[in-house]
């Protein structure tokens, strides 16, 4: 996997130990994306928006009702439905997210 250090880490908080996908990650906690289990065209579209393996993603506010949720990724904010976010798999955390 590619290691990249392009995300601003100002929002980075300790990685939740239980979150396996982006959908499970609590608001404000940083996670490192491992892979996108989505059809190729959707995955490419998300990658163009910054959802790249190795990037740090921080969930921000949700729309009222909890869906969709805004994610801070690669310097911008992108909203995804839970359905899509549950196919973005996070790296297993070992305590803290470090910016490599």
């Amino acid at each position, binding site marked *: 996997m*590619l290691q*990249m*250090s*392009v995300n*601003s880490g*100002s*929002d980075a908080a300790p990685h939740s130990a239980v979150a396996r996908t982006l959908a499970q990650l609590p608001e404000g906690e940083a996670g490192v994306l491992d892979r996108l289990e*989505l*059809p190729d*065209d*959707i995955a*490419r*579209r*998300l*990658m*163009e*928006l*910054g959802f*790249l*393996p*190795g990037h740090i993603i921080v969930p*921000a*506010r*949700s*729309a*009222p*009702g909890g*869906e*969709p949720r*805004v994610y*801070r990724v*690669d*310097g*911008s*904010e*992108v*909203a*995804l*439905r839970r*359905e*899509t976010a549950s196919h973005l798999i996070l790296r297993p955390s070992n305590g803290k997210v470090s910016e490599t």
Partner: protein
Amino acid sequence: MSDCHDCAGCAVAVAPALQKGARTHVVAIIGPPNSGKSTLFNRLTGLRQKVANFPGVTVEQRVGKAKMHGATNHNDVVLVDLPGVYSLNPRSEDEQVTRDVLAGTMPGIPKPDAVLLILDCTNLGRHLVLAAPILSLKLPTLVILNMADDLKSRGGHVDTAELANELGSPVALISASKGQGIEKVFQFMEGTSAGTTSLAPPRVELPVLQDIPRCRQWAHDVGTGAAYHAPAPPIWTRRLDSVFLHPIAGPLIFLIVVAGVFQTIFKGARPLMDGLQAFIQTSGQWIEHTLPPSIFRSLLVDGIWSGVGAVIVFLPQILLLFLFIGILEDSGYLARAALIADRTMAKFGLQGKSFIPLISAYACAVPAIMATRTIENKRDRLATILIAPFMTCSARLPVYTLIIAAFIADRPLLGHFFGMQAGALLGLYVLGFVAAIATARLLKSSILKTERVPFVLEMPPYRWPTLRSLGLRLIDRSKVFLRRAGTVILLVIVVLWVLENLPVKNGQPPAIADSFAGMIGHAVEPAIKPLGFNWKIGIGLVSSIAAREVIVGTLGTIYHSEGTSESVGLRKALQSDLSPGGAVALLVFFAFAMQCMSTIAVVRRETGGWKWPAIQFSYMTFLAYLCALITNEVVRSGIFT
């Protein structure tokens, strides 16, 4: 660059703005969504722009002429605004069009002589990714770093000279909305136009373009090389989001915004519309008094003036709607509105981005259908296009107002503020909405079923809308609307007037029943009799296929009253000529039927063929007929009396 001039000369079907001959210098503007591309385009061209579609596709093409200031340079610079894209991998129609234009293979558009690549410098890492495929084209390119004011105020930094060195292209740090640094863009265009700009090879090696992670890493390395320091997060955007996306305040503000838009469209536009109507009436009377009585005066006053005037009266409403949409879009609230609406829209099989087009359709389906371009998913977009004409557009209002005033007593329904007539009107709005969402469900569970619709929406930072951009938008929309009033509607009115006045008997126009229009009315009468409509309504229905509001003018002419101007007379005439069942059925018919040539035309353009408008027209007409039939039977049977 000589080959570029050759293809400018031999291009087929050159767009009007490009027909200046071989000396025309073509510059393409390209950038990711939310980079301020349109703002720059407006800044460079002002009012000298045209909107059309790229040939064969539904992608909007904006072409304009740059206002060149250089005294030594007499070449015209034609600017082509390309769709907002993140890459040139041809997956969407937008990306394919961008690729074709840049490669010079788009028919009618000469290969660009130079490229303006606009990037948001507050997010340079991600936006620089697009520089790789653009620079690999080896066209003279100016890399424009937009939002310089934001970068500075939020404490970011970039070394433009170093970035220019690395990329081998000039770099300009600008603020398109404030006009800062625009002169550098003009200097570049003058340089390329005069042929004095030379290409330097990029110092950095370009990445493999298909590999997004590599491209992103490349962009990061280039940024680091140019001492790029990303700005702090936009504090105001986060503060505003904590209000606008608040679990309780968020939906409340959302409802207030939607209600406010409605209120202003209907109530705020009233004085303007009344003023416009008074002006049209007075000027019509003045013409009638000035010209001697003749067949031409009749055509001019009774036909054109009152008919086209009845349509132009809606201009204030449409402009107000676009003013609101413009403010919402430019400020960044529109993305939040789409986010809030997404969950509800998902229940009907649609998505948040369908919400604004559907709200716009309450003013007019034509701009609404054009606004569906923001929906990337083709099936979602098509579903939105197909249901938009069900929303109660402003053209239905004159018809509703006339029939309701004539047939529904204004008794209080909920206190003094909300009477039966208002209730009936609201009921018709609800009826259209219900038909729209029911159709959406039907479509999305059958022919337009989608497997997994990823809702991906970038949230731009909040910004102040500029008067300049709002003004340009309004001027553009007025032109579209007035063109429609001056072409389609004018044509129908003239044709109708001719049909009403032929065949001439003994030098006199015939009675309406004996005219060609009357014959058409009598011909359709057997089909519409079960709905409770007579042959006069039949003429109205046939004429309203052009545009719904035409029926008011038509009925006015038929009943020998003055149409909307003396609507009391028309009301009386209708009361004696139409049964209550027929009247309610007529309202229901207009709620569902697709009586609008402009909508049919725009659906054909946006869906790229006659198939979908044909299906849509048949479905809506069938539904209208069926529901009007049921309504007439139910009212006639006397259940409600």
